[in-house]
């Protein structure tokens, strides 16, 4: 591994860590698309900054971009407060407006200079090592390492200082106001830091990859944990793994680095989406299946419970189930097996009888259905998912 390769991975990892931390809070606050809006509207800030300084490398550009980022949030919230449109519509109106104004300003005033919109949107990580930070003829490494490192430092310090405040305002704004923590203050703090991060990062990796690094790792982490601390750790881990794997994927395929990193992020998300133990697609599917089975078993038990001993034996026949419930033979067998395994029924010469446990269970279930009180079924909750939610 040669030095520039190492440096690219360092820059990408710094971006990934910074974005992953911010992403956790944006995703939890259901505001993740604000990052998409900011990443586009900062174009206007860069253009305005350029008109003032006429220097593409000036830090004024970054300042203006960050300010326009915050302006985006303010405008979106202003429109939301008027209640004239739904909140997502507000986002969808603000950033295209600012972006359009930016493009129009470029095309009317700056057509002779090189302000490449493609590069703004797509970024080029491969160029990161060429822009060196040189102090008194001494090469201190790529500029973006310093910029992103500085931003990351701000993020980590504020995370440790305001962890409690962030946590409370994210999950219970009402409680936080009671505790004397202003949700609005924390909100704007978070928005400002997001804006600065997006500005700092998009210079290195482009607008779209910033959005991917903010939303995808945090969402992936959210699928596998309920704990904020763990979510932060997982999110950072997913981000860094994708950055490094993505870099090598791009290296092997000789393809776009940003594209490869997003592709890896996407792959990890899909994988977790499918197999996540509690909130994944497959576990959801099996949960639904089990619930369907339990509902069917319950119907069977209630049916048996309603029969009088001896007189209505034809209704106890297995064959009767096919007609009565319109179950197929296979379905009926699997449900009978399920009920037998749980000790709810006994089968005696093709006739189905409730066991004592089964009778108790159906009595409790009926009680629950009639009174709709939770305490009746406390004991059953562990055994049957049906009653859990």
């Amino acid at each position, binding site marked *: 591994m040669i030095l520039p390769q190492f440096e690219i991975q360092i820059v990408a990892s710094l971006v990934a860590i910074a974005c992953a931390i911010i992403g956790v809070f944006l*995703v939890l606050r*259901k*505001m*993740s*698309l604000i*990052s*998409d809006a900011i990443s586009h509207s900062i174009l206007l800030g860069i253009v305005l900054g350029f008109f003032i300084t006429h220097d593409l490398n000036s830090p004024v550009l970054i300042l203006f971009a960050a300010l326009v980022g915050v302006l985006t949030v303010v405008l979106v919230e202003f*429109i939301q407060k*008027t209640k*004239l*449109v*739904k909140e*997502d*519509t507000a986002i*969808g*109106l603000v950033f*295209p*407006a600012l*972006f*359009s*104004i930016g*493009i*129009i300003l470029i*095309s*009317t005033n700056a*057509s002779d200079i090189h302000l490449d*919109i*493609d590069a703004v*949107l*797509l970024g080029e990580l491969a160029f990161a090592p060429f822009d060196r930070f040189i102090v008194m003829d001494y090469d201190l490494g790529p500029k973006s390492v310093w910029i992103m490192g500085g931003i990351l430092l701000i993020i980590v310090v504020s995370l440790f200082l305001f962890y409690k405040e962030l946590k409370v305002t994210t999950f219970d704004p009402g409680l936080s106001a009671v505790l004397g923590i202003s949700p609005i203050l924390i909100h704007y703090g978070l928005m400002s830091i997001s804006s600065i991060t997006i500005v700092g990062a998009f210079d290195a990796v482009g607008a*779209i*990859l910033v*959005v*991917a690094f*903010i*939303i*995808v790792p*945090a*969402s992936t982490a*959210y*699928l596998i944990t309920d704990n904020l601390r763990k979510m932060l750790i997982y999110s950072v881990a997913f981000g860094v793994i994708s950055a490094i794997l993505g870099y090598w994927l*791009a290296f092997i*395929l*000789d*393809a*776009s680095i*940003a*594209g490869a*990193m*997003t*592709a890896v*992020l*996407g792959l990890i*998300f899909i994988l977790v*989406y499918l197999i*996540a133990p509690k*909130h*994944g*697609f497959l576990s*959801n599917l099996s949960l639904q299946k089990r619930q369907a089975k339990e509902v069917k078993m319950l119907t069977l038990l209630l049916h048996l419970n309603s029969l009088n001993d001896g007189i209505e034996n034809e209704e106890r026949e297995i064959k009767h189930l096919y007609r009565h419930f319109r179950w197929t033979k296979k379905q009926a067998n699997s449900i009978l097996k399920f009920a037998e395994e749980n000790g709810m029924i006994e089968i005696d010469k093709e006739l189905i009888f409730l066991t004592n446990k089964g009778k108790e269970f159906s009595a409790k279930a009926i009680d629950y259905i009639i009174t709709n009180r939770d305490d009746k079924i406390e004991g059953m909750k562990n055994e049957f998912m049906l009653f859990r939610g």
Partner: protein
Amino acid sequence: MDIFEYISLIFTDYTIRNISLGTGALGAICGVLGSFAVLRKESLLGDAISHAALPGIVLAFMITQAKDNYVLLIGAIISGLIGTLLISGIVTNTRLKKDAALGIVLSVFFGFGMLLLTFIQKNPDATQAGLDKYLFGQAATLMENDVKLLSIVLGLSLLVLLMFWKELKVALFDSDYAKSIGIKTRFLDSLISFFIVLAIVLGLQTVGVVLMSAMLLAPAAAARQWTNRLYVMLIIAAILGVISGVVGTAVSTTYNNLSTGPVIVVIAILIVIISFLFSPKRGLLMRQILFIRSRKKIEQTKVLLLMYNIAKTHDDVGHPHSNKILNNFQGIGKNVLKSLENQGWIKVNEGMWLMTEKGFNYAEELNKGITL
């Protein structure tokens, strides 16, 4: 070129006519279908789908090697539909909310598209599929065939709306009720989603991926301010869409060097701002006027009741009192006294006021209402 020259060119110049017709038709499609997106709270679907179309475009190009626009369009539609499916899959199967689902599909699909794009760019004899055109749109490339295609899609979507109008309306505003009376809401949802994806994909080459979302929702958001009826909203949205498209094209052609997409979007957003401010029922201006009016009304009532309480302690209701009495209790502006006099409730004369019979009776009624 000035604006009159432009208008004459619409009738004589083949290219300019195509561009104007094309952007106009696109505006109408976006207005109509965007209304559904906005009302279904899916405003940002446009943003997500326009990005999600990229891998489809690139793959279609890689597989067929054809520069034929329609093949690329089909690719874009397929990948846009996969994106929509994935979004609803994520929302129904996990606890992630819609914003995260949209963001994931948007960024991952686009990144994947960029990855694929590098393979095309490496291939020396293949021309690029035109990422620039896709990113920012180029209305100038609208051909007669594109205009035809846009018109067909417009007609088709109107036809579908007419066919399922009642069902769509019920499903839109009360989907649970719609389900209960046997309307296939899932089918209708997919139908509308399909047409929205179609509109987005068609809009891409005109306004580009970033601005497509505004194109879709700005006319609808503006139209929403002027009416509470669905069909009126659709009609207004379509008209506003056409205006944004045609005026935007006119402005961008009149001033050289302006790209059409951003100008169309700026015009559309201006229309939204005007609607927000001046709509007669919901507008911010009207809201402010009503606010001031009701504040004035409250102040009037307050003063009138104060006078009533003073006047009722006297045998003669019309006994004159000094204005200063009122001022001892609170600062009272001359405007309030004047407006009360205009209503005929009091008479003001040289720093003195007296209550009329009419004013006293009115205040008595008011007082009853309040003390009750």
